[in-house]
């Protein structure tokens, strides 16, 4: 019984939250890594692209709710998602046309593109705030839980409860679907192969007749789609606040770099590595220890790091990986 309690407590406080958070980071990191692989720069505006896409989706959700349309137990935001993706893709294409293309044609050093993306980041930052304001918005509707704590306790008779939120389940399911679709696209379709060729060797790809403008367009559309999906899932699971999407940029970059920039599998693995280490390192193991070793009465909370230092974990992982394996776990491009 005690071992079961310990397992449930770990699931409830570590595994489920970290898995959902990891999936959100992974989707974000996929977008970053795609742009890095194909357009060859670190896109600092990615967090705010996520915020913009989510803001549009929220507005569309409100519109749908106003019309009385809902999806039963699922959040209405899923129906509004295509609107958000379309708007974000349009914004990304306009930005590319107005800013990045100018530098790409000149074949500038990547660092200049990175700095340009910082400028774009601030612009999108402001745009999102103009659109929806700075306040926190909650837009999750439908059923809140797949299993809630009370039901679980009644079902099992355990003292520990287990909560599995609809949004967490959705995050995992959608992340799997999106990743499968992305890999199918990259590996099986002609456009996907063209993108990979362009990523491997730009000049050779041009010589073999690949249209660079089309590849760039595809990349932005896919990245915008990934950003919007990641942003909406994050917002559904937690809460939408423009500033938080700026903060999440750091763990996303940590995830992309840990996995190896430019490597999609690496981005996914990186997302989960960062999420699980953030949660596990700041989790106090006192309760678990109490269940497993009833005789042992430790003094403290058995917590490696205070929760205030959560973001520091991403930094430490980033530094360690850059020091010992600059290309990341899955051999991406060196940064």
């Amino acid at each position, binding site marked *: 019984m005690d071992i079961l309690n310990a397992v449930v407590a770990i699931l409830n*406080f570590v595994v489920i*939250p970290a898995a959902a958070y990891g999936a959100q980071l992974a989707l974000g990191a996929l977008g970053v890594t795609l742009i890095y692989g194909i357009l060859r720069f670190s896109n600092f505006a990615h967090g705010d692209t996520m915020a913009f896409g989510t803001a549009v989706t929220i507005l569309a959700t409100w519109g749908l709710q106003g019309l009385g349309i809902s999806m039963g137990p699922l959040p209405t935001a899923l129906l509004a998602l295509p609107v958000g993706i379309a708007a974000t893709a349009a914004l990304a294409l306009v930005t590319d046309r107005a800013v990045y293309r100018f530098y790409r044609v000149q074949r500038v050093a990547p660092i200049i593109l990175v700095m340009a993306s910082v400028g774009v980041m601030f612009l999108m930052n402001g745009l999102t705030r103009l659109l929806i304001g700075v306040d926190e918005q909650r837009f999750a509707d439908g059923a809140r839980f797949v299993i*809630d704590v009370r039901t679980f306790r009644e079902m099992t008779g355990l003292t520990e409860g287990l909560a599995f939120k609809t949004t967490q389940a959705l995050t995992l399911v959608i992340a799997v679907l999106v990743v499968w679709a992305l890999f199918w696209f990259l590996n099986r379709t002609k456009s996907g192969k063209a993108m990979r060729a362009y990523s491997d060797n730009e000049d050779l790809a041009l010589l073999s007749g690949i249209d660079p403008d089309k590849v760039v367009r595809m990349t932005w559309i896919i990245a915008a789609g990934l950003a919007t999906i990641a942003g909406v899932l994050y917002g559904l699971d937690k809460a939408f*606040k423009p500033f*938080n999407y700026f903060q999440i940029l750091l763990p996303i970059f940590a995830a992309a770099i840990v996995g190896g920039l430019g490597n999609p599998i690496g981005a996914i693995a990186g997302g989960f590595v960062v999420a699980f280490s953030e949660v596990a390192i700041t989790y*106090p193991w006192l309760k678990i220890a109490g269940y497993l070793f009833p005789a042992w009465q430790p003094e403290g*909370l058995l917590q490696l790091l205070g*929760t205030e230092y959560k973001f520091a974990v991403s930094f430490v992982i980033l530094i360690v990986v850059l020091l010992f394996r600059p290309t990341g776990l899955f051999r991406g491009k060196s940064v």
Partner: protein
Amino acid sequence: MKKLLLATAAGALIAGSAGAEEIKMGISLGFTGPLESMAPAMRDGAKLAMKEASDSGLLLDGSTVTAVEGDSTCADAAAATATVERLITAEGVKGIVGGMCSGETIASLENVAKPNGIVMISPSATSPALSVIEDNGLFFRTSPSDARQGEVMADILMERGIESVAVTYTNNDYGKGLADSFQAAYEAKGGNVTVNSAHDDGKADYSAEVAALAAAGGDALVVAGYVDQGGSGVVRASLDTGAFDTFVFPDGMIGTALLENFGSEIDGSFGQNPAAEGEGRETYLKMAEEAGFDGAGAFSAEAYDAAALMLLAMAASGSSDPGIYKDKIMDVANEPGEKIMPGDLAKALEIINGGGDVDYVGATSVELVGAGESAGVYREVAFSNGEMEIVGYR
């Protein structure tokens, strides 16, 4: 030369005889930031008192009072300091109702108000640190110190038979002061605080913080935070993971937003905030309703009293100079004298002008003790069926 002398003489004459002036009063509250939902009702409260005294025509030979607002942001001490600096040096205010939060208040008091000799009366800064601050007699507050709130909260918990709690506080002067004073009071009464840890405001996700609190355990969770900020996030994550289902809410959490956010999910929880009972409060609520705002908002009545105290002290000392009227604030707030209810400012001014004494009771039963802070009456509230009900006063 003759003309100049004449003009000077005339000027002196005017200044000497007709004391009527336009008195500017600053209102420095956090109109943006973690307590932004409380600030408007506080501002309206302060303005109500100013308008009342101004319209009566009895304040310092018919002087008028104008309010100048500034945003103290609550969280950003540098921004609050700049705001108070502007109010004092650019606008020339004679006194300030503010600041709103403890950290910001300490910073603006020490950096600007004290060097410039301007009186500040805060309606809502409750950190125990402000009781012992060196203020040259310039700082007062119409809310009690959190040292007192810690005691009250410990009493309520003990009476409800809860002897083990986890505490989380917002990482600033207010949160830390309240959490520490509560822990001291609670442990002195035999309670056990399993963990006393901070949370930072403005994050999307508090599951890690809640996991830590849950690991430490306890029969209830004391949330010494802000309802518009991390406080609500911690409660949300606790409810979702089933870590806690009974919460204790101090003043920063008691607000309409709490019910909007959680409804009946927090049934069985309870809390307290400074708010006096009685005739004064009822009158104030009616006045606020007529003026078109919600007087029941947290610290709105305290803001009214803060402004009223300053204006009555000006009348009692016969001067709007903060260096002079600061000494009269304690006198008008406390006995002896005629009891003054909200809405009676004109009567009070009449008594003062006639040389009498007043004892300002106001909307919150003002009684200034110690270094000039409210003795403190707390309202105990409980949540059931998605409603907040008042249990009693202590």
